[in-house]
């Protein structure tokens, strides 16, 4: 009887029921869409932070380069240039990066950080930039320059030949602790091949990011050259845009770069999110020369379209959803109250034949809840469709981390000063890595808690609608109801 009565009544008031359910559906759909988009933006931010920061990392410890620091490898070493003619030059330089202001920390710092209270895991990594320089320099018939490194910057006169013709290729290389647990790459990201094992600690092996592998047509089993050594690709990893191109064991990286017992970054996982700031302070005290940055610090540095999307979903989207829901709830409530007002005789009659007020109220609330659930289901379907549409058509969003952030070195200069070289220096080519720009594809994933939220809102909407009507029905005195239509 209860369900039959609800069903028949809602069918009788079909248009009004449709308006109420649709109003709730639109409000709930907006909430689902905005929540999904917010989850997508959060996930994108996570990708950005991960690509710049490392998996499972709560904070990093880095050190800016001090003058003269930066490892033993130097461009230069070209020897005295010939007095005339062309000279072919090819060099492979592996040095701390991505910024040229990236400094190194002793490996013992990792142990120091590990020992701090609240640290659950810490591992060191050596982030390097491999720069391959090759080309021809025409020294023509002119006078021999002085100790100039590169043309135009030496202390001697400029070569008189044709302009130099050379190319520079750079890739980023992360030396990661094998079995470190926290860091820029985990085994779960390996999509084919295998992750490093303890046997690979000093091996000439590498894992390439899928993006880089695609660019260079690399596969598991291919080889790559780094600092004159041949490394075998043992795996491909789905690293985010902006991550390193190549991952190699830390010890191998230290050996290739000539940076024994050095790391550029210490990745730290903290036992509890509430302890992050305390651990950061302790790390700062333990390593006063180092820069300690937490994920919150880095998140603040993120700018660009992703930051705009984040602002949009967190402010405008939420307010829009709230306003739509409020309007939908009010509309539903007022329409239900109006419907009850038109059923005064009906409810008066039911009370006259012995129905208690609570049974009449339950009937009205049941009608409201049913509309709420219909609106909720329709809203979820609409929201899912909208979220899928966002996922399908949303453009990639670019996030940029300010070069002044801890991990970046800004525009540096190649230090000159190799044997025979002058004090020449030139701006680092292709400084995109300094800007730490990451392109992520925005998705709007539907999460279970979003569905639960939508259902809760549907129930709330139904209860609000029902409560308005029920309030009217509860106040109805049977005598007044029957007298008013007599």
């Amino acid at each position, binding site marked *: *009887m209860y369900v*039959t*009565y609800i069903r*028949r*009544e809602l*069918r*009788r008031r079909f248009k009004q029921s449709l308006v109420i359910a649709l109003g709730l559906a639109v409000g709930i759909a907006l909430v689902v869409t905005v929540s999904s988009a917010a989850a997508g933006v959060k996930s994108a931010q996570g990708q950005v932070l991960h690509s710049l920061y490392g998996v499972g990392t709560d904070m990093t410890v880095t050190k800016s380069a001090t003058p003269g620091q930066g490892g033993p490898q130097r461009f230069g070493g070209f020897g005295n240039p010939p007095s005339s003619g062309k000279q072919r030059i090819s060099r492979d330089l592996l040095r701390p990066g991505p910024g040229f202001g990236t400094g190194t920390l002793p490996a013992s710092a990792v142990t120091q950080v590990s020992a701090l209270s609240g640290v659950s895991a810490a591992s060191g990594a050596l982030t390097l930039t491999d720069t391959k320089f090759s080309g021809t320099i025409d020294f023509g018939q002119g006078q021999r320059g002085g100790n100039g490194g590169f043309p135009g910057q030496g202390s001697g006169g400029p070569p008189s030949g044709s302009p130099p013709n050379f190319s520079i290729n750079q890739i980023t290389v992360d030396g990661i602790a094998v079995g470190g647990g926290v860091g820029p790459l985990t085994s779960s990201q390996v999509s084919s091949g295998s992750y490093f094992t303890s046997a690979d600690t000093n091996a000439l092996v590498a894992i390439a990011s899928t993006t880089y592998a695609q660019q260079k047509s690399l596969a598991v089993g291919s080889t790559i050259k780094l600092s004159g050594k041949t490394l075998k690709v043992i795996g491909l990893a789905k690293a985010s845009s902006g991550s390193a191109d190549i991952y190699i064991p830390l010890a191998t990286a230290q050996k290739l770069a000539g940076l024994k017992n050095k790391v550029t970054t210490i990745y730290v996982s903290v036992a509890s999110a509430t302890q992050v700031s305390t651990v950061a302070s302790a790390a700062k005290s333990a390593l006063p020369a180092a820069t300690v940055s937490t994920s919150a610090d880095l998140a603040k540095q993120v700018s660009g379209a992703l930051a705009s999307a984040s602002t949009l979903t967190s402010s405008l989207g939420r307010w829009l959803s709230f306003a739509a829901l409020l309007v939908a709830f009010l509309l539903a409530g007022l329409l239900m109250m109006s419907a009850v007002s038109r059923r005064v*005789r*009906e409810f*008066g*009659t*039911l*009370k*006259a*034949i*012995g*129905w*208690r*007020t609570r*049974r009449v109220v339950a009937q009205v609330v049941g009608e409201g809840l049913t509309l709420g659930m219909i609106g909720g289901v329709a809203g979820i379907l609409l929201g899912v469709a909208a979220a899928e549409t966002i996922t399908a058509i949303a453009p990639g969003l670019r996030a940029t981390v300010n070069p002044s952030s801890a991990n970046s070195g800004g525009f540096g200069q190649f230090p000159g000063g190799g044997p025979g070289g002058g004090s020449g220096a030139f701006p680092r080519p292709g400084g995109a890595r300094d800007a730490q720009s990451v392109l992520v594809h925005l998705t709007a994933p539907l999460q279970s808690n979003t569905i639960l939220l939508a259902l809760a809102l549907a129930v709330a909407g139904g209860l609000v609608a029902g409560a308005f009507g029920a309030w009217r029905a509860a106040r109805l*005195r*049977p*005598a007044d109801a*029957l*007298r008013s*239509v*007599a």
Partner: protein
Amino acid sequence: MYELTDVHKTFVRGGQPIRALDGADLAVDEGEFLAVQGPTGQGKSTLLLLLGGLDRPTSGQVLFEGRDLGELPEAELAILRAEAFGFVFQTFNLIPTLTALENVETALVPLGTPAAERRARSLAMLGELGMDDRAAHLPSELSGGQQQRVAIARALVKEPRVLLADEPTGNLDEQTRDEIISLLEQLWRERGITLVVVTHDSAVAGRAPRRAVIENGRVRTGDGAQVPN
């Protein structure tokens, strides 16, 4: 069964106080068929509402089986309405979205009668009133007389001790009016219930062994009670 003493009832309509009953006295015996007559707006329906526990007097006593309906809590009044009183209205007051059978069933809902028994008893009641073949029809698919039969079935299915009818033939043609009043009279005789019919129709009132007339908020009773012009 009923003992009304110096009952006053004033209510406000359109911002104006209306004195519907002004010191009414009335006694109704168990099993009695009483017709209450009177011009429109003289308090007939108000009297019926008080007898059915649907309203409370402004002052005075409305005793039903020794209990003052004006003083009973709402919950107890609801129980009395569910068990002891059956109502028949001039405008039938059927639930438009429910079938004839379901409308009759609504009277058994507050009694907590199981669904199957509710359905069986309602169908039997409709059959008794010659309406079993219209059980699945909505009120809008029934004639006025048929709707009133369904309303009477709804009032009687719970086997009340009192049947209160407010202008039960007011919306019916003459032939149907006679059918309905004959039906009520028959049910009164067969079931031994107390029947109070409020009507302005002398033909209907003439079927009752005893008549009361409401005039200026007071009740005059007796076989020879006459409706003032």
